[in-house]
C-alpha cells in the first residue's frame, strides 16, 4: 500500500497531515527485483526453501510471512500514518476500543466500559486490569492519560492523531483503572479513538518524541497480541506472539512482514511457498488473481474493500483566509462542466474492464461496506453515463463544439490535465479511458503521471486528480478533510485538506454530525454531506475497488476477514486477522516444478541478455577492428 499512501490519498488512519510520499523504491529497483526474484527463485530454490521450512517447522515455530509492498514510515505511534505502520501498531499496542469484526461496532479493548456524562462533555473510561506490558509492568489508565496528554501537548507529537484530540480540554487518570476525558464540545467519535496507548515508563525517557522512530530498542515494549522484535528498513518487520495477551495468545508464534516492492515478485514467492500471504495493497491484478486461482493450496480472498477510487476536480485552491493559489482550470469552477465530465464517465465499463469485476460501481462517498453511512443518489439526482446530457451541459456552460474541440468564450480550446500516480496501474488505465471519452466530448486531456503527486497537489497545480482514501468504520476523518478548517494556512503548504473544498453548508453539517450522539441521526447528517459532495462534482467516486489478496492454505488453515462475512484480511481496523490466524498442520507446499511464468520470464531475460551480449560483442569487434 505504498500505493495507497503515495497515493497518499488513502490512509486508513485519521491524521491531519497527509503524506503523499513518493513511492520509495525507484522503479528501477522494482525492475531489478523482478529480475533477481525471477532468476534466483527457480535456479536455487533449495536454500530459500530450506530456510522457509526451517522457520516454519523445524524448530517447531510457526511463522506467518506476509508480503507487503509498502515501506514503514515510522514505528512511532505519534508519527506513523501509513497503513503498514498503523497495522503494526494495532498489533503491538492496545487502543481504548476496538471494532467488532462482524459489524464494526465498538467493542472493549484497553477500556472495558465507556460512559459520557449527562452534558456529554465528560467521558469516563474503565481501563482493564489484566493487561500487562511485555516487560512485565502493568498497563494502567496512567499510560493512556500520558499518551493523550503527549499528543495534546503538540510537541511534534500530533502528526498522526491530532483530529481526535483538538476537541479535548483535559485528560486525567484518577485511578489506575479510570480514565477521564473532558471535552470542549460534544464529539461523536469518543468510542472510536484510534490512538495506540504507549507505555509511559518507556516513552517518558525519550528525549525528543517528535524525532523518535521507536526502532532502536528491540523488543519494543507493548501490550498488543504481538511484540515487535526486529525491523530492517524496506526488508522486514518481525513480531512474536504475546503469550500473555488478555484476549488469548495468537496461534502463530511469529509474524513477519516482508517487503516486496514488486507485486508480481510477491505472487511468485507465494506460489513457491516462501510467503504465506500476499497483501492486497495494491490489490492483485485480475491476471494475478486468475493465475493464482488455478494453483493448488492457494486461496484468493476477494472481498469488498474499504477504499473509494474517485476523480477529484480542483475547486480553486486557496488558503484558510481566502488567498487563491495554484492554476486549476477556470472552466472547472462551473458546476455544469464538472458534472458533464462525470456524466461522460462510464463507471460500469471501468469496473468491467479495468477492475474486471473486482470492484463495485461508485456512487456515494462512503463505500457500501459501511452500510449505515453509505448513500445512493436518488433517481433524479444520479449522474449516470450520459454523453448527450454531458454535451448539452457543456453547450449551456458556453463551451461550444467547433471542429471537434470544445472552445470557450475566449476562443481557447478546453484542455485539462489529470494528476495520476505513476505507480498505480489503475490510474493509468482509467486515464486512457477518460482521454477517449472526453476526447469524444471535445475536451483534451493530458494524463500527468508522477511518482510523487504531492508537490503539484499541495500547490493546487492540477485540474483533475485521481483520489482515493481508505475509510474507517467511523467516517469522521474522511469527512473532515473537506472542511474549510482543513485548508492550508499558507499557500502550497501541506495541510489536512484533500481537495481544497470549502463550503459553508458542508461545514455546518460536519459540525452537527460530530456533535450528534444518536447514531441514526448522525448517519442521516453524514448522508446529507455525501449528497452535497455528489452534487458538487468535486469528488466523483468511480468505483470501490475490492481487496484482492491471497494466502497459502497449506500454511494458514484459517484466517478472519473483516467484516467476517466478506471482507479484507490485510489492513483491517483491528488485529483480528493475524490474531485469529490458525497455522496449518505443519505441512508445507509441494516442491514441484517452478511456475511457468517464472520460466518464461527467465527465457525472455536470457534472450534479451543474449541479444545484448551479441550486440556488445559486435560493437567491441567493430571498435577493435575498425575504429581509429
Amino acid at each position, binding site marked *: 500500500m505504498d500505493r495507497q499512501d503515495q497515493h497518499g490519498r488513502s490512509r486508513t488512519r485519521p491524521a491531519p497531515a497527509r503524506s503523499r510520499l513518493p513511492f520509495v523504491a*525507484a*522503479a*528501477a529497483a522494482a*525492475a531489478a527485483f*523482478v529480475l533477481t526474484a*525471477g532468476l534466483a527463485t527457480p535456479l536455487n530454490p533449495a536454500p530459500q526453501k530450506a530456510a522457509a521450512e526451517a522457520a516454519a517447522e523445524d524448530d517447531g515455530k510457526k511463522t506467518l510471512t506476509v508480503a507487503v509492498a509498502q515501506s514503514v514510515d515510522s514505528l512511532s505511534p505519534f508519527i506513523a500514518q501509513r497503513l503498514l505502520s498503523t497495522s503494526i501498531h494495532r498489533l503491538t499496542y492496545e487502543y481504548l476500543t476496538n471494532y467488532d469484526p462482524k459489524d464494526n461496532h465498538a467493542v472493549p479493548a484497553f477500556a472495558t466500559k465507556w460512559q459520557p456524562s449527562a452534558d456529554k462533555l465528560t467521558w469516563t473510561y474503565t481501563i482493564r486490569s489484566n493487561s500487562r506490558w511485555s516487560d512485565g509492568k502493568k498497563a494502567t489508565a496512567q499510560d493512556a492519560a500520558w499518551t493523550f496528554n503527549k499528543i495534546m501537548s503538540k510537541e511534534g507529537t500530533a502528526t498522526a492523531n491530532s483530529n481526535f484530540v483538538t476537541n479535548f480540554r483535559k485528560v486525567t487518570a484518577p485511578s489506575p483503572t479510570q480514565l477521564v476525558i473532558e471535552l470542549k464540545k460534544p464529539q461523536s467519535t469518543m468510542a472510536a479513538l484510534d490512538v495506540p496507548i504507549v507505555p509511559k515508563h518507556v516513552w517518558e525517557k525519550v528525549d525528543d518524541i517528535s524525532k523518535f522512530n521507536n526502532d532502536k530498542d528491540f523488543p519494543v515494549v507493548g501490550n498488543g497480541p504481538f511484540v515487535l522484535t526486529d525491523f530492517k528498513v524496506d526488508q522486514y518487520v518481525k513480531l512474536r506472539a504475546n503469550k500473555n495477551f488478555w484476549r488469548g495468545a495468537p496461534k502463530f508464534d511469529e509474524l513477519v512482514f516482508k517487503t516486496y516492492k*514488486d*507485486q*508480481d515478485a510477491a*505472487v*511468485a514467492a507465494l*506460489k513457491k511457498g516462501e510467503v504465506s500471504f500476499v497483501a492486497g495493497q495494491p490489490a*492483485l*491484478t*485480475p*491476471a*494475478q488473481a*486468475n*493465475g493464482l486461482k488455478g494453483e493448488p493450496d492457494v486461496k484468493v480472498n476477494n472481498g469488498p474493500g474499504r477504499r473509494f477510487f474517485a476523480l477529484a476536480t480542483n475547486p480553486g485552491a486557496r488558503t484558510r483566509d481566502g488567498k487563491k493559489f495554484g492554476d486549476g482550470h477556470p472552466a472547472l469552477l462551473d458546476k455544469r462542466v464538472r458534472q458533464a465530465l462525470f456524466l461522460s464517465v462510464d463507471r460500469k*465499463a471501468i469496473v468491467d*474492464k*479495468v477492475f*474486471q469485476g473486482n470492484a463495485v460501481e461508485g456512487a456515494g462517498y462512503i463505500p457500501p461496506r459501511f452500510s449505515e453511512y453509505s448513500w445512493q443518489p436518488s433517481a433524479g439526482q444520479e449522474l449516470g453515463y450520459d454523453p448527450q446530457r454531458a454535451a448539452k451541459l457543456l453547450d449551456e456552460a458556453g463551451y461550444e463544439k467547433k471542429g471537434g474541440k470544445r472552445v470557450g468564450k475566449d476562443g481557447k480550446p478546453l484542455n485539462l490535465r489529470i494528476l*495520476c500516480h*505513476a505507480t498505480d*496501474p489503475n490510474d*493509468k*488505465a482509467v*486515464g*486512457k*479511458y477518460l*482521454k*477517449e*471519452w472526453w476526447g469524444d466530448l471535445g475536451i483534451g486531456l493530458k*494524463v*500527468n*503521471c*508522477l*511518482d510523487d503527486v504531492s508537490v503539484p497537489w499541495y500547490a493546487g497545480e492540477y485540474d483533475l486528480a485521481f483520489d482515493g482514501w481508505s475509510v474507517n468504520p467511523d467516517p469522521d476523518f474522511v469527512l473532515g478533510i473537506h472542511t474549510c478548517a482543513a485548508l492550508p494556512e499558507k499557500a502550497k503548504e501541506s495541510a489536512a485538506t484533500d481537495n481544497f473544498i470549502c463550503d459553508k453548508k458542508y461545514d455546518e453539517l460536519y459540525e452537527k454530525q460530530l456533535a450528534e450522539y444518536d447514531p441514526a441521526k448522525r448517519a442521516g447528517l453524514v448522508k446529507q454531506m455525501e449528497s452535497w459532495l455528489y452534487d458538487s462534482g468535486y469528488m466523483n467516486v468511480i468505483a470501490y475497488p475490492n481487496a484482492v489478496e491471497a494466502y497459502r492454505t497449506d500454511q494458514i488453515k484459517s484466517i478472519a476477514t473483516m467484516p467476517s462475512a466478506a471482507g479484507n484480511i490485510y489492513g483491517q481496523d483491528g488485529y483480528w486477522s493475524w490474531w485469529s490466524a490458525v497455522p496449518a498442520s505443519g505441512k508445507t507446499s509441494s516442491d514441484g516444478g517452478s*511456475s*511457468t*511464468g*517464472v520460466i*518464461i*520470464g527467465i*527465457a*525472455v531475460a536470457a*534472450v*534479451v541478455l543474449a*541479444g*545484448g551480449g*551479441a*550486440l556488445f560483442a*559486435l*560493437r567491441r569487434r*567493430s571498435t577493435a*577492428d*575498425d*575504429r*581509429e
Partner: protein
Amino acid sequence: MTTETASVPAPQEPENAEGNRPPQEVKSPRALAWTRRRHSAARFWREYRTHRAGVVGLAALVLIALAALGAPLLVGSDAQSVTEAPGEAMQAPSGEFPLGTDQFGRDLLALLVWGARISLTVGLLAAFLSVAIGTVVGITAGHYRGWYATVIMRVTDWFLVMPTLVLAIALASVMDRSVWTIILAIGVTTWPTTARLVRAQTLAVESRPYIERARALGGGHGHIMARHVLPNVMPLVLAQTTLVISSAILTEATLAFLGLGDPTVVSWGGLLQDAREAGAVSAGDWWYLAPPGIAIAVVALAFTLCGRAVESVLNPRLGVSR
C-alpha cells in the same frame, strides 16, 4: 547529407580544395558536385553490399520501418483505443488475435506495430540529438584547444563517468511524462562518447597542412570548422549515429519499462511495463511479454549491423576505395 559525406571520407586535400574553390572558376559547379555525389553514393552502395550482415540489418530495418509507417493501413487506426477494444482481457493467441490481447482486450499484434513508431522515432531523434551535441562539443573542443577545451572536456568526462541510465531516469522523473522528455533525457546523457571520438578526429584533421593553408588564406574559425573539419569528421559521425540509435532504442525501452514514459502512448518498452503491471509475468502470459522484447532486440541488432557495415565502409583511415 549521407551521400555527400560519403564522398569526403578521408582528409584528402585536393578533393577538399576543389570543393572549396569559388564557383565561377568551374563550369556548372552544381552539376559537377552532383555527379561527384552520385558516383560516391554508388561507390558507397557497392562497398556496403559486400557486408552481408549489413544488408540483412538494412532489410530488417526497411521491413520494420514500412510496417511502422503503414500502421494505420495494416492494423487500423483505432487499434490503440481502449473503449473500442475488440477482444476480452488477456486472451491467448488465436486466429483472430495472432499474439493475443492485453488487459484492455486490444490486439497485441496491432499494438506491436503501432509501438514500432514510437520506438523508432524516439530512437532516431534521441540518437540525432545525442550525436549533434557530441559533434558540436567535439569539434569546438578540438578546434579551440586552450582553457575552453579543458573545461568542456572535463564536463564531457563528468558526463562520461555518470551512469547514463541513472542520469536519464533522474531527468525523466523530474520532467513531464512525454515522448519529448524521453528523447531529451537520452540525448543529453549519451553524447560524451561521440564528443570524445569527434574531438580526436578533429585534432587529427586540424594537424594537416591544408588547414594551416586555409588559415593563412584568411579562413576564420567558423570557416575552418564548418568547411574543412566537419566534412572530414562526418563519416565518423554517421557511423556513430547508426550505432547510437540502437542503444537509444534500448534506453527508450528501458525508461518506458521503468514507467517513465508517457502512459497514453504505446511503445515497446511501455508494452513490457503494462504487461508487468497487469501481472502477466506471474500469470505466465508469454504472448504479452515476449513479442515486444524480441522486437526491441531485433531492431537494436539491425541498427548495430547497419552501423557496423557503414562504419567499415566509411572508415577514414582505410579510405573508401582501396
